[in-house]
């Protein structure tokens, strides 16, 4: 790894958004504190999404109290696999993915066995607030496993690829596909080692890929050329992301979606503090897009109009 630094002016010229500016000028200004619950609490997000006709992964059950923990085996008995996540978790912490349930035994995506008592301890930690923001008591959500779309076969290692879109004031401005790797332990979080592939807002085609903030060309585990990727259902994904704006009323929003083999695009979660690595994955700064949206001023565009506008103006070839 090279220890080289960029000139601030070079980054500024390329419109690179930095953490401080994101926090003050975008999150602080566009995301009203009172709506955070809609985003930070995955259970609330799920309910809101259902009310707004946005498809989400199926809910198997919710564990709210310690004494309910032991009902989990019964809850998941009929499932092929399941996911346990803290409702208020952040950064992918505390998500337990079980891809195989066999005669009361549970297996992680990498084939490692998880005993019921491991599951109980994990859920107990979740309820105690170990993974939640500020250590507040939390509830655990048990969700159905996502059967991921085979289009991504070979692009993701032991995990579900998800599509992150940054939605600014209702406009999808930048997109990225996140692919898990062996290094990321089946998780799609970039800081844990997942691969990020920048995706053209106009077409859903891959543009550029990074791992650990460094550009790469091939998936480290499967050696598939990453920018050949093309996300199906792209229009639908853009619409879903755009609708999430009305639903959450957050101006600067990250939407995480997955493609289910059977159910199509599902909204996984929303993020009020989406990370900045998406810029590296797209190999360009996000600020010109954000400024373009700001220039529109007050508009009464519908979801369809916004998606059309975004596809036209924010695609890779468009000049801003």
């Amino acid at each position, binding site marked *: 790894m090279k220890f080289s630094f960029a000139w*601030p002016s070079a*980054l500024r010229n390329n419109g690179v958004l930095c953490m401080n500016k994101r926090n003050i000028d975008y999150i602080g200004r566009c995301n009203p504190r009172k709506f955070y619950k809609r985003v930070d609490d995955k259970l609330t997000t799920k309910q809101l999404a259902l009310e707004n006709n946005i498809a989400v992964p199926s809910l198997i059950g919710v564990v709210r109290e310690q004494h309910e923990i032991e009902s989990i085996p019964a809850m998941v008995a009929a499932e092929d696999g399941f996911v346990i996540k803290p409702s208020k978790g952040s950064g992918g912490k505390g998500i337990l993915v079980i891809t195989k349930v066999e005669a009361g035994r549970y297996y992680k995506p990498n084939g490692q066995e998880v005993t019921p008592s491991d599951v109980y301890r994990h859920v107990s930690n979740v309820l*105690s607030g170990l993974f939640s923001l500020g250590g507040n008591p939390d509830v655990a959500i048990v969700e159905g496993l996502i059967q991921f779309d085979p289009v991504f076969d070979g692009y993701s290692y032991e995990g579900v690829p998800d599509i992150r879109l940054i939605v600014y004031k209702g406009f999808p401005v930048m997109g990225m596909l996140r692919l898990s790797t062996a290094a990321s332990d089946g998780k799609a979080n970039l800081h844990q080692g997942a691969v990020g592939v920048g995706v053209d807002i106009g077409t859903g085609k891959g543009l550029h890929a990074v791992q650990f903030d460094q550009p790469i060309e091939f998936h480290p585990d499967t050696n598939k050329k990453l920018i050949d990727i093309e996300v199906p259902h792209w229009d639908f994904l853009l619409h879903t992301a755009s609708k999430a704006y009305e639903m959450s009323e957050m101006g600067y929003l990250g939407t995480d979606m997955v493609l289910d083999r059977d159910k199509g695009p599902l909204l996984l979660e929303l993020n009020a503090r989406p990370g900045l690595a998406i810029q590296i994955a797209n190999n360009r700064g996000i600020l010109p897009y954000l400024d373009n949206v700001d220039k529109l001023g007050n508009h009464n565009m519908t979801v369809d109009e916004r998606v059309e506008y975004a596809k036209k103006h924010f695609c890779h070839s468009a000049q801003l």
Partner: protein
Amino acid sequence: MHSKKPFYILVALLFIVGIASSIFRGIEHNVPFLPGKQVQSWTVEAKVQFKATGKPAEVSFSLPSDPAFEILVENPSSPGYGLSITGDPQNKRANWSIRSATGQQNLYYKVTIIPTGITKIKAIEEPKIADTYTWPETEKVAAEQAIEEVWAKSATNLSFASQLNKAFNADERSQNIELLLSSNSPSKLFVHMLNNKGVPAQEVSGLYLEDQRRRQQLTNFVEVYNDGEWHLFNPSDGTQGRPDNLLLWDRSGKSTLDVIGGTNSQVNFSMLQDTRSALATALDVMNNQGALDFSLYQLPLEEQSLFKGILLIPIGVLMVVFLRVIVGLKTSGTFMPVLIALAFIQTTLLTGLIGFILIVAFGLMIRSYLSQLNLLLISRISAVIIVVIGIIGLFTLLSYKFGLSEGLTITFFPMIILAWTIERMSILWEEEGPKEVVLQGGGSLFVATLAYLAMSAPWIQHWVFNFLGIHLVILAIVLLMGQYTGYRLLELRRFKPLAGE
């Protein structure tokens, strides 16, 4: 969008008030800007002696009044005598009295003074035009001639006095002056001649301060008024202006020592030079002046030492804000490093680091056993706290047994913080592996070490406690950094791939 003007005005205000109050404190109250600064002080002892005749005796002795020196401590001592100090601050006198005394009497007055650096003697009010002196017939003509001669060569009060001083000490004095000096003391004659021309002047006496001198006498000088200021002349040797080591003792123009009911009275002085802490001196002076003082030195000692620690926290916090907002380092637990740094101050850095790593490593081992027990989080943390206390107790005992006194300071670590650190690290270990634990733990220790280095610097400790205004400046800086929307240092590296093209 809100206007940012009020914000910047607030920040500027905080900044200016903070700096100004610190400078005021430094200049006006003489609180030194650097710790460990020393100032010279003088201890002067005046010994008044006289022979008592067995009748009631009264001694009036003038006390020093000199703007160039600040009195720190003064104490007259005189067993058996009644004592009162009278007069305004410019003209203080000690009055000793006794119903009956016989034989040799010794009265003492001891004073500790420090130089203030004010060498000018400002007149408090316009002095009265002095009465013209009536010369004896034998001197009248000589005096008038001498005065006119010098007067013709002068332009102002001051130049008149200088010329006169010169004439007094010329190698070949005029006959007139020779005649006058034969029957008058130089200083008296000097004053009379000045007064004759309506120039206010008076005799004063001063003491030359020289280390370890005993049996010194006062020297006579003449003060001449010119334009709101008194100027010092010594007509006996022709010098003008005040020497650095001169303490003006008596500026009343009256006699320095009056004794009623005694004979053979005399006064002599002994003195000693000393160095003392500039800070302690400034505090003594403030105490003497009864100045409205917002310093924390008015608190009881215990609270003072408590505040010495508390007032370091803004420095640590500033450090953390800087490292996070400007540099972009991550710390586990926002202000945990500050608390660890506070503990380091008690333990010293190396002992602190070793102790911290030992406790956390031991804690992690025990925590890994606890994690198999499937406990609730709250009771698990409580158990870790108790175990941490046990570990600290064990280490303290062991280091005591082995005679390692450094080990005893380990008790200064905040236990709750340690327990949470252990819990977090343990989860991190399970989720992301030992590498991340070393990385994050090391990062936190690094920040704590930097915070410690900042907080343990003697001049920073001196500043945060003695110049409370500095905290307003820190507040202003923290507020400003809260507005910083530029790139963090580490982001310049992170986004390096985006700088190209």
